């Protein structure tokens, strides 16, 4: 693409991952954006654009900026959850390219456990049902898991994918979380733990599902020229695809195969821009709202053949120490639920060589590469990472970065 390597992510930051933030989404957003600015070495005059995404559950960018003394030349808050991160990174590049601003902070702040339950329980379950929701919600199909499960079930029917195979996604991510001081769940689990956990919505067990947590997460995008003068090693954006859709996103069941996900359409855009192939990617960040979503995207983007996702995720490939680790922070299944930014943050840290694990010298890039519990989670010589953002089966985004 014309903009390959011309924009960088220069700062990343987050709050604690908890289930009891006891504060507003505004307060959390302010802290996360400030952490990302400090990470980048930027003061209040260093950021002049701000974007966020939310679903009626969070603060707006123009309320956050003044709390940090930032005067904005551009802001935009969009409606949306997963897969928004990569899309907003692309839009931030566009805003800067258009001359509207020079440096954009992107955040997502949510009391996803203590206030607006992302799983759809509590206040969300009591909302009136209208419009397109009438096609599904009256039948007890409201939560994300309930919305996605027929896709997962059909994949098992068509390709013979098993619960045990996809359980390996949880196993891998729990292993990674055990090396992440920030992770909400740090205990490693086994395949037996996953398939032995209680049913939520068949084929989903409890441990096939991600967490609900309270947190804010942020990252900062600027031009490569500006990036070179900042505190951290610039991480270059090679390609980005934002909210790419299958036909009939409103009711994707109408246009099959229903086991196909948006990556089928996004992959050519993002790999085309970056000029690389799946084999060139060292670390993936395939969105883990559920174990199945990680698997479906990895196969759709071509990290294995379509239908072989079950074998791919259970082969050891996606674990630290494997050929191409996925979600090395433990991400949504174990670290905390952020609607995707945390997976981009993790890959930025991987590319810097400065993953915040238990290695005493991590900030200086000194890692042991000992992947036993409570030790290291830095991938050796990570050069290229790829994020596979998921909103739902028919909608997704992608981002390829390098150091």
């Amino acid at each position, binding site marked *: 693409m014309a903009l390959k390597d011309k924009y960088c992510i220069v700062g990343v930051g987050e709050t604690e991952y908890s289930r009891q933030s006891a504060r507003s989404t505004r307060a959390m957003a302010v802290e996360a954006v400030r952490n990302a600015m400090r990470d980048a070495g930027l003061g209040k005059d260093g950021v002049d654009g701000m974007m966020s995404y939310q679903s009626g559950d969070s603060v707006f960018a123009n309320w956050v900026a003044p709390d940090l003394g930032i005067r904005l030349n551009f802001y935009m808050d969009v409606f949306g959850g997963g897969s928004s991160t990569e899309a907003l990174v692309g839009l931030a590049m566009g805003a800067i390219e258009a001359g509207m601003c020079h440096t954009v902070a992107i955040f997502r702040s949510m009391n996803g456990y203590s206030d607006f339950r992302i*799983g*759809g*329980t509590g206040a969300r*379950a*009591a909302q*009136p*049902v*209208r*419009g*397109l929701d*009438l*096609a*599904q*919600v*009256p*039948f*007890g*199909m*409201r*939560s994300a898991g*309930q919305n996605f*499960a*027929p*896709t997962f*079930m*059909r994949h*098992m*029917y068509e390709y013979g994918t098993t*619960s045990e195979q996809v359980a390996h996604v949880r196993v891998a991510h729990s292993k990674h979380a055990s090396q992440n001081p920030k992770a909400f769940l740090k205990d490693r689990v086994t395949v037996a733990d996953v*398939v032995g956990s*209680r*049913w*939520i*919505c*068949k*084929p989903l067990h409890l441990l096939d599902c991600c967490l609900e947590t309270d947190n804010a997460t942020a990252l900062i995008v600027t031009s490569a020229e500006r990036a070179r003068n900042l505190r951290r090693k610039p991480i270059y954006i090679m390609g980005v695809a934002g909210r790419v859709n299958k*036909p*009939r996103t*409103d*009711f994707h*069941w*109408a*246009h*099959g*195969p*229903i086991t196909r996900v948006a990556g089928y359409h996004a992959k050519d855009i993002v790999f085309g821009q970056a000029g690389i192939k799946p084999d060139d990617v060292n670390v993936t960040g395939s969105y883990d709202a559920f174990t199945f979503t990680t698997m479906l995207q990895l196969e759709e983007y071509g990290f294995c053949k379509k239908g072989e996702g079950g074998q791919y995720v259970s082969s050891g490939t996606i674990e630290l120490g494997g050929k191409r680790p996925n979600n090395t922070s433990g991400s949504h299944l174990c670290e905390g639920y952020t609607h995707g930014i945390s997976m981009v943050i993790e890959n930025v840290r991987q590319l810097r060589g400065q993953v915040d694990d238990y290695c005493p010298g991590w900030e200086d890039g000194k890692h042991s590469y000992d992947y036993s519990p409570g030790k290291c989670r830095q991938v050796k010589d990570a050069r290229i990472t790829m994020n596979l953002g998921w909103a739902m089966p028919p909608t997704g985004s992608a981002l390829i970065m390098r150091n």
Partner: protein
Amino acid sequence: MASVEYRGMNLVIPENDSEWREHFKLARANHRLMLRACKACGLMRYPPSHGCPWCMSLEWEWKPVSGGGHIYSYEVVHHAIQPGFKEWTPYAVVLVELDEQRGAPTPDEALRVIANLVTPEFRPEPEANVAIGKRVRAVFQDLAPDFALPQFTLTDEPPEGRVWRFPG
């Protein structure tokens, strides 16, 4: 404005909801599944929409379908999100592929509808009887004088292709 209470939910259809305002009314009046068909190209679509996804025509009419189909995929909810569904658990949500317009206009397209798999008494069909491939027919649960909820129930017809049930 139609406002129907069902399983603790408030189903709301304002008069200006031009997509849905007739859908449940027609289901109640006819006890048949009625879909929107494009007047220009003749193809039916679901859910009801203003434009034709294939030829962009804005002209349409309601057309009855047989209500027959097979289970294309499904899930079984054990942990209900909506309080009104808790006494129903475990209940099956089915994706039914209707008999009409299968594989048209392209091989991957079909008329597919989400509903529950229920007994003739509108109770959830036991989990052991739910499987991909099984034949079903539409049934209609009257909830108000101008509102019926289309559901599906099993038939005795031979299955469509391979019958497959989630192991476990």
